């Protein structure tokens, strides 16, 4: 049944590739503007074999993982403290409420001046992009835990710390993972934008170089890789969330 579902998902993609190949084969537009699917796949193979694609992907992946990990951990920790302690929430919430609506890439010019154009720039941008949504989802998750459940744990002898680790955080997991899942895809979008603007390595940089060389086939390869990476990240968190909560939700 599962194999059947996967096959069902691939059929439209295969149909799309066939139609794409057919349109390119008609040569309505020049191949350098609209390459065929097979030409793109050939380029994908070349870029993979000569290491260009993998090197750039590794650079982007490192930035995404570093920024996302730091931003998520910070968001979960701060969200936990703000969700549990009203006074800390009241102190920080006004500041975060002002900072959250700023588009992540809006920080780029300021960060370029403050930290320069180096490896830290995309990492900090991804940190900012991950931090706020994970923070607010964590706070929401913690606040949504039923008060009576917390009281029940207290009457059974659990300390505040034990209640946090054994009741509140496990029950906040679905909300926390919603934040992580949404931002996993967003982190890739931000790293590509940052690399296109300022960084000479990574998938974003490869994209912008390909544009200057009018290599539409490489651009499409990069977009495909980006699409797959976003999907893999989102599905990864979905899988972990399901694994952790499917028994009781």
């Amino acid at each position, binding site marked *: 049944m599962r194999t059947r579902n996967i096959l069902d998902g691939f059929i439209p993609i295969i149909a799309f590739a066939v139609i794409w190949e057919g349109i390119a084969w008609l040569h309505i537009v020049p191949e350098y503007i609209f390459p065929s699917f097979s030409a793109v796949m050939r380029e994908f193979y070349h870029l993979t074999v000569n290491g260009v694609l993998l090197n750039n992907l590794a650079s982007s992946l490192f930035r995404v993982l570093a920024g996302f990990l730091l931003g998520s951990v910070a968001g979960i920790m701060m969200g936990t403290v703000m969700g549990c302690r009203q006074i800390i929430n009241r102190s920080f919430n006004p500041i975060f409420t002002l900072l959250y609506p700023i588009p992540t890439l809006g920080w780029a010019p300021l960060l370029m001046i403050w930290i320069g154009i180096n490896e830290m720039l995309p990492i900090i941008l991804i940190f900012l992009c991950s931090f706020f949504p994970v923070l607010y989802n964590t706070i929401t998750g913690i606040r949504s835990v*039923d008060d*009576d*459940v917390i*009281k*029940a*744990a*207290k*009457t*059974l*002898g*659990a*300390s505040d710390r*034990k209640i946090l680790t*054994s*009741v509140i955080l*496990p*029950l906040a997991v679905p909300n926390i993972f919603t934040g992580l899942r949404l931002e996993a895809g967003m982190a890739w979008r931000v790293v590509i934008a940052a690399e296109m603007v300022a960084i000479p390595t990574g998938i974003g940089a490869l994209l912008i170089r390909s544009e200057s060389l009018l290599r539409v086939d490489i651009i499409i390869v990069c977009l495909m890789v980006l699409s797959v990476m976003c999907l893999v990240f989102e599905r990864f968190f979905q899988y972990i969330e399901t694994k952790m*909560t499917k*028994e*009781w*939700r």
Partner: protein
Amino acid sequence: MPDIELKNIRNYVFNGLNMEIFDKELLVVIGQNGAGKSTLLNIIAGLVEYEGSVLFDGVSVNRMLTDKRRVGYLFQNLALFPHLDVASNIGYGPAVNGSRRESIAKRVDELLRLMKIEHLRDRYPKNLSGGERQRVALARALAVSPQVLLLDEPFSSLDTGMCSCIRQEIKRIQKGLGITTVLVTHDMAEAKEMGDRIVAINGGEVREVADLQRMYRNYPDDLHHLQNCTGCAIECYCKG
């Protein structure tokens, strides 16, 4: 099990409440919505702030936090931990109190047997019926060998047949274990079936304390009336 005294309790509901709950008795607290019944339980459990004194066997527990009072609390919505299976729900109290793994398993087995829910051991709360959830919640409350058992309208979500059956079982278990118990309800039939004594609370004050045996003897008509009229319970009691 302790004798519980509440002396001159004051907070946002009570204005100088005095009350005594005797060792091993099942005291029923009746009253309409907003009368302060649940607040009374929360005070005994140390879950809300108050002025005055709560004494367990003559010893003040005012400075004792909830987690140290050894109180078994059955909440109205039962408040089972949804992310833990039945065995883990029951074993939660002993586990957080530092019991060894073997003794937790032994205690869980005992309570599963006592509640006749051995077959539910690995189920999660979402997969339990109302009555099953009730038994699990009671087993969880008993797992820490509480000094006092507090029951906050625990039968309100059950259908009548199930309700009566669970009441009798709780009564049997309470008498068997000899736990001082306070049951909050607004259902007079439930109060009559369960209680050794009945306290009516209204507007944050104890209006009357009734000994059921005395009521049966002296006011059979009122008692019959009360069974059919939960809304006027307090007025009827005041006659006694």
